[in-house]
């Protein structure tokens, strides 16, 4: 299964265009494959006979799996069939043994490069072993010169998979079937303030490729319109109750919700650190404040654990300090995620620029009353648009979307913050 798009992780075979026994030429469409983005053609990378179809129509397999075997015409079809999980289309060699295409001759090797959208540094032997055992090299951390994946890394990965390696000293190779080191796992409280997760091959590649597309940080943006009716009601009720003891602003609510949502999506609460990603367990929210000669983002530390009133007080103090240029370095460094609010300027929606090394920022627009269809009726609702800028090196589309959804739910139903 080729990676037919840079973000494709698996593909569903929609329809086979060739049957077993059909002659195929390089470039012929073998099958239609549904990717994460569209239905695309899977084309043959070598001439020969379609010896075996390994994946049935309707079946979904990960990128790198064998979907079919193309054999040299005239070769007996016997011999070993590559295991279904082996990554590269195998081609029968003159020796009569099934050999994967890459090492045989330059032509199929080129096809393999094309088949694999992300280049992986690995020794030829490691590539061969990965091919035959179905290990995705992109998920293996290399220990060879320059981070090259060598045989030992695959052996380690294999042992890990079998549960044989359990030492803290073991290199952080990732077993083939395991997901990426899951930053989504809930943060551990009371432990280390952060956890450094080495970049896997795919992460490195994404970082390199996307960084060349849009400035040093490859941004992408997700916008969602949030119904602020209940949040407004809750805020009004709170402020009535507080009376003279203080006031809760929408900004405070948004900061609190942003922070709480991050505790449920640690993947977004992260720093990109060139060769690793630092997933923070602590949540420190940077709050963009416009000052006379520019912009600064003072930090509200542990915003997820602070009461709304405390957030509000701190936010006002920091904003005041920022405008009077009294911020200490400690006041504006170490944020793990940021919020930029231009609602007070009547901006409906905008995209904020990420504050490196953070991986995301929420841009908050104005709350405006709009006609909305609810239960078949057109009713006026207070609505607010939020746009999340994501560093694609750290956050993928779905990851960012999942976070934004949680944030939206919290803002639309403030009780969700108590969950």
């Amino acid at each position, binding site marked *: 299964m080729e990676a037919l798009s840079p973000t494709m992780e698996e593909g569903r075979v929609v329809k086979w265009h060739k049957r077993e026994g059909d002659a195929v030429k390089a470039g012929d469409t073998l099958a239609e494959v549904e990717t994460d983005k569209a239905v695309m053609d899977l084309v043959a990378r070598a001439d020969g006979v379609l010896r075996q179809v390994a994946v049935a129509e309707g079946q979904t397999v990960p990128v790198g799996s064998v979907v079919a075997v193309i054999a040299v015409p005239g070769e007996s079809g016997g011999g070993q069939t590559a295991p279904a999980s082996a990554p590269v289309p195998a081609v029968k*060699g*003159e*020796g*009569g043994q099934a050999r994967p295409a890459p*090492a*045989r001759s*330059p032509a199929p090797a080129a096809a393999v490069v094309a088949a694999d959208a992300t280049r992986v540094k690995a*020794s*030829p*032997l*490691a590539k*061969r*072993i990965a091919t*035959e055992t179905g290990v995705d090299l992109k998920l293996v951390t290399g220990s*060879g*010169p320059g981070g090259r994946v*060598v*045989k030992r890394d695959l052996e380690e990965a294999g042992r890990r998979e079998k549960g044989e390696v359990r030492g803290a000293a073991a290199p952080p190779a990732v077993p083939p079937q395991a997901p990426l080191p899951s930053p989504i796992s809930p943060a551990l409280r009371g432990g280390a303030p952060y956890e450094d997760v080495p970049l896997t091959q795919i992460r490195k590649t994404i970082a390199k490729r996307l960084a060349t597309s849009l400035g040093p940080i490859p941004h992408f943006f997700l916008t969602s319109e949030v119904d602020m009716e209940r949040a407004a009601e809750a805020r009004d009720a709170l402020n009535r109750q507080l009376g003279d003891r203080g006031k809760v602003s929408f900004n405070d609510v948004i900061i609190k919700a942003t922070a709480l949502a991050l505790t449920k999506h640690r993947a977004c609460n992260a720093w990109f650190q060139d060769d690793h990603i630092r997933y923070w367990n602590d949540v420190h929210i940077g709050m963009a404040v416009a000052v006379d000669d520019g912009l600064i983002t003072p930090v509200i530390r542990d915003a997820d654990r602070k009461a709304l009133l405390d957030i509000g007080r701190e936010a006002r103090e920091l904003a005041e300090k920022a405008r009077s240029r009294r911020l200490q370095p400690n006041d504006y460094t170490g944020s793990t995620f940021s919020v930029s609010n231009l609602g007070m300027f009547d901006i409906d929606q905008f995209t904020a620029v990420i504050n490196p090394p953070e991986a995301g920022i929420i841009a908050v627009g104005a709350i405006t009353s709009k006609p909305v269809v609810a239960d078949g009726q057109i009713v006026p609702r207070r609505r607010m648009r939020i746009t999340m800028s994501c560093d694609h090196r750290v956050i993928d589309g779905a990851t960012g979307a999942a976070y934004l959804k949680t944030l939206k739910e919290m803002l639309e139903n403030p009780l969700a913050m108590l969950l």
Partner: protein
Amino acid sequence: MASQFDVIILGGGPAGYVAAIRSAQLGMSTAVIERDKLGGVCVNIGCIPTKALLHSAYIAKLLREAKEFGVDAGSVKTDYGVAMQRSRRVSDQNSKGVEFLMKKNKVTVVKGSGVLQPGRKVKVGSDVHEARKAVIIATGSRVKGLPQIGLEINKTTVISSDEALFLEKAPATLAIIGAGAVGMEFADIFSAFGTQVTLIEALPRILPLEDAEASDALAKSYKKRGIEVIAGAKVKKGTSAKDKVTLEVEANGATRKIETTAVLMAAGRAVNVEDIGLAECGVQVTERGFIKVDPGLQTTAPGYYAIGDVAGPPMLAHKGMREGVTVTELIAGKKPHAIKYDNVPSVTYCHPEVASIGLTEDQCKERKLEYVAGRFPFSANGRARGTGETEGFVKVLRDKQYGEILGAHIVGGHASEIIHELAVARENEYTVEEVELAIHAHPTMSEAVAQAALDSLGRVVDM
């Protein structure tokens, strides 16, 4: 006088002097303590002078065969004494070269026998030198005799390579006990200088650590030129008289007596671990007598490291040299590439030369590995035919499933030079395909490597 250095190295052989240079390059003040000449056994009484003598032997062989090539050199006379003198000059040049390198790199050379003391100190005579970072033990090894059967080295009739390298003339007859690299090389040398050589090996074949096919090829070649080869032989007793030695040798179920002018002991080496203060510093040795080291070459005493022959097999200069680089980089806080002990080439410089890397075919079988042996004989190689070096072959052992080069064995002219292609391949985990895909110049002996790789894939071209 007491002085302080960052690193003190005990022993200026190949492991020690390379460690010293690398240490100095890394900005550490460095001292080498050497009781004899810099360069150690390798430069003075090992690798280097034997290579000079082997070349003399090779010239003799060439001249004897020259007529066939259209060059009549008349009757060839040899003089071991002259060859020996030349080999001494080569050794001295090399030793001076090491001295120059020490100066160039500002390494302090302390002459004398060093004894380790606790606290990273080394005592030389009445001076105590202290190492701020590390003491590296690189005291090497020496030849050993077999005193239990009457073959203690007496330096006249029972000699070691130490004496053989200084003989003024070749003995009339010579029994060599041990057919490893040293025994094989001296058999080649003395045979070329007119000595009637008997080569005795306890294990079932000569060059016992090499691939069986290599052993067979060399046994055949040696017998052809009149060297008597007795393998699987047990020397039961040795009786040393004033100008001869009588050996009782049991082989093939029979015991026979061999009378010889001299016996050359070439059966193993002993490491130099005595009287250097190891126990006092808490440096432990293994059951086999080597200094115990961890993967970072540190001994059981923190701050004391060991490299080269004393740190364990293979007892080869190039293995020690690599350890010298690695250990100093570790001491300097760098993260050097881990040494691959299964990728140390082994070379015997007899004629034809024998060079190998990785596993032998027997080892592949013992480990129950699925492998394919690819072979290519030099008799089918154009360059070898031209130079008359058609003896030998290249053999590549390919892992059946993944194409890994499990081992490679070369017998033939310049095998010692050709093997490195396969050393590079293995170090970088190239498979036989990458070796074959690299275009080899034609006509060269190295083409045989590509052809053997192809043969392992079932598609040899030139045969």
